[in-house]
C-alpha cells in the first residue's frame, strides 16, 4: 500500500493541480497582497517622476511568459500614463512585439494618449548587447524607424532624448538573461536608473544586483505583478491569479510532506 502511494500515478497529481487551479478561479476570491520593498522601489521611482519624463520599457519576453510578465507590463503602463510620463517601448525578443504593442496602445487609449506624442513602440532589434550599446551612443542610429515604420528622429515623444543617458528610468521586463545585459552594457556604461521585472524562476538570480543597487527594484513573477497592481490600486489579472497560485503552493507543500511521510514509513517497514 505504502509503495503504491509512493509511486502515485502522476495523473492523480495532475488532477489535484487542475482542481486547485480551477476552483479558486471559479470561486473568484482575492487574497490580500503584501507589498515588498523591491516592488515599492519601482513604484516610488515612477511615482516621483515629473510630468513628461521619459521611461523606457523593454518588453524582453515572448508569449510563453505572458501570464507572468504581461500583467507587470500593464500595471507599469497604467502607472506611467496616470503620471503623464512618456513611454518608449522596445523589445529584444522577436516574439514580444505583438504583446508589447497591444499593451502600450490599448492601455494608452484608456488614458487618451496619442501614439508618437505620449508613447511609441520602437519594435524589435537583433543583437541584444549591441543594441544597448548602439542605443547608448545614439538611439536614432539603433532605431531609425518605429514599429510602424515612422521615422523616429522627429517624433515628439522622443524630444530631448538622444541616447540611453537621457532616460529618466529604464525598466526591463525579462524572461531570459537580458537583465544582466542591461546592467553590464546599459546601466553601468551609460548611468541610468534601472528597474526590472522577471519570471519567478529568474527572480532569485537577481538578488546580488539588488544588494549592489545595480537594480533599484525588482518585480518577480506573478506575485511581483500583483504587488504592483495593489500599489497602483488597480487590482486585475495578477491579483486574481494569487488565489490559485496560493492554493497550488499549499497543495505542492502537502504533496511533499505526504511523500516524505510515505518515504519514512516505507523505510521503517524495511
Amino acid at each position, binding site marked *: 500500500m505504502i509503495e503504491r502511494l509512493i509511486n502515485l500515478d502522476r495523473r492523480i497529481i495532475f488532477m489535484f493541480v487542475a482542481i486547485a487551479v480551477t476552483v479558486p478561479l471559479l470561486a473568484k476570491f482575492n487574497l490580500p497582497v503584501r507589498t515588498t520593498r523591491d516592488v515599492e522601489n519601482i513604484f516610488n521611482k515612477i511615482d516621483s517622476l515629473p510630468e513628461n519624463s521619459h521611461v523606457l520599457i523593454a518588453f524582453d519576453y515572448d*508569449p510563453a511568459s505572458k501570464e507572468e510578465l504581461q500583467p507587470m507590463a500593464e500595471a507599469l503602463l497604467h502607472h506611467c500614463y496616470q503620471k503623464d510620463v512618456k513611454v518608449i517601448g522596445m523589445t529584444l525578443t522577436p516574439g514580444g512585439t505583438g504583446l508589447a504593442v497591444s499593451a502600450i496602445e490599448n492601455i494608452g487609449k484608456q488614458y487618451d494618449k496619442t501614439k508618437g506624442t505620449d508613447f511609441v513602440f520602437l519594435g524589435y532589434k537583433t543583437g541584444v548587447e549591441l543594441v544597448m*550599446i548602439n542605443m547608448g*551612443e545614439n538611439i536614432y*542610429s539603433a532605431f531609425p524607424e518605429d514599429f510602424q515604420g515612422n521615422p523616429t528622429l522627429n517624433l515628439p515623444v522622443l524630444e530631448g532624448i538622444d541616447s540611453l543617458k537621457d532616460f529618466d528610468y529604464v525598466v526591463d521586463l525579462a524572461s531570459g538573461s537580458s537583465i544582466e545585459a542591461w546592467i553590464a552594457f546599459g546601466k553601468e556604461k551609460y548611468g541610468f536608473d534601472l528597474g526590472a521585472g522577471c519570471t519567478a524562476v529568474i527572480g532569485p538570480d537577481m538578488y546580488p544586483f539588488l*544588494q549592489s543597487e545595480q537594480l533599484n527594484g525588482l518585480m518577480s513573477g506573478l506575485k511581483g505583478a500583483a504587488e504592483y497592481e495593489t500599489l497602483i490600486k488597480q487590482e486585475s489579472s495578477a491579483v486574481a491569479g494569487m488565489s490559485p497560485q496560493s492554493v497550488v*503552493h499549499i497543495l505542492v507543500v502537502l504533496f511533499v510532506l505526504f511523500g516524505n511521510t510515505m*518515504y519514512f514509513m516505507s523505510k521503517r517497514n524495511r
Partner: protein
Amino acid sequence: MNFLKRTIPLIIAFVMGVTMALQYYVPHEVSQSLLKVVSRWGITIGGFAVFLGAYSLFHLHLTKIKRKLPGWGYSTFVFLGAGITIVFGLYNGGEFFWQDKQEGTMFEWIYFNVQVPAGATMFSILAFFMASAAYRTFRARTNEATILLIAAIIVMLGRVPIGTMISQYLPIAADWIMSVPNMAAKRGILIGVSIGAIATSLKIIFGIERAYLGGGD
C-alpha cells in the same frame, strides 16, 4: 585555404578583441564613433543569424521526415506553421512586405490566436510537472536535503498571500532566505561564471580557444 579559414579569422578576432577592449577605456570622440559603427555592424551581422537559425531548424526537421524518425509527424507542423505564418507575414494584409507594417492582418490574428495561447499553455503545463516532480523527488534523505526541503517550503508559502495568513513571520523568513543565503550562493556562482567568461574571451582573443572556427580543434 587554411589561411582564409583559420589565419584571417584569428587575426580579425585578435585585432577586434584588443581594439574593443581598449576602446572601453578611451572616452575620445573617435573611440565613441568606432563603437557606434562596430555596434551597428554587429546588429547587421546578428540579423543573418536568423537565417542560419531558420536553416538549421528546417534542415533538422526535414531530416526527421525523410528518415521517418520517431515523432516525424510532428515535424510536418514546423513547416506547416512556419509556412502559413511566413506567407501571411509577407502578404502584410494585401500591402506586401515592402510596405510599412499593416494593422489587423492575418499575421496578427495568428500571433494572438495561435502563438500566444500555445506559448502560454506550454508554460502553464510546467505547474503540473513541477507538482509531480516535487512529490516524487523532494525527499529528506540527508541533512542537506532536509535543510533544502524546509527552506523550499518556507519560500513557497512565504511568497504567496496565503503565507501571511498562516503566519506573519513566513514572508519575513522567506525574504531572509532569498536575500541572504540565496544571494550569497548566486553571487558566488556569478563571480565564478564571470571569471570563466573573461578567461574564455582572452583565450579566443589570443587564439588559444579555436572551437568557434569549426573543425573541432
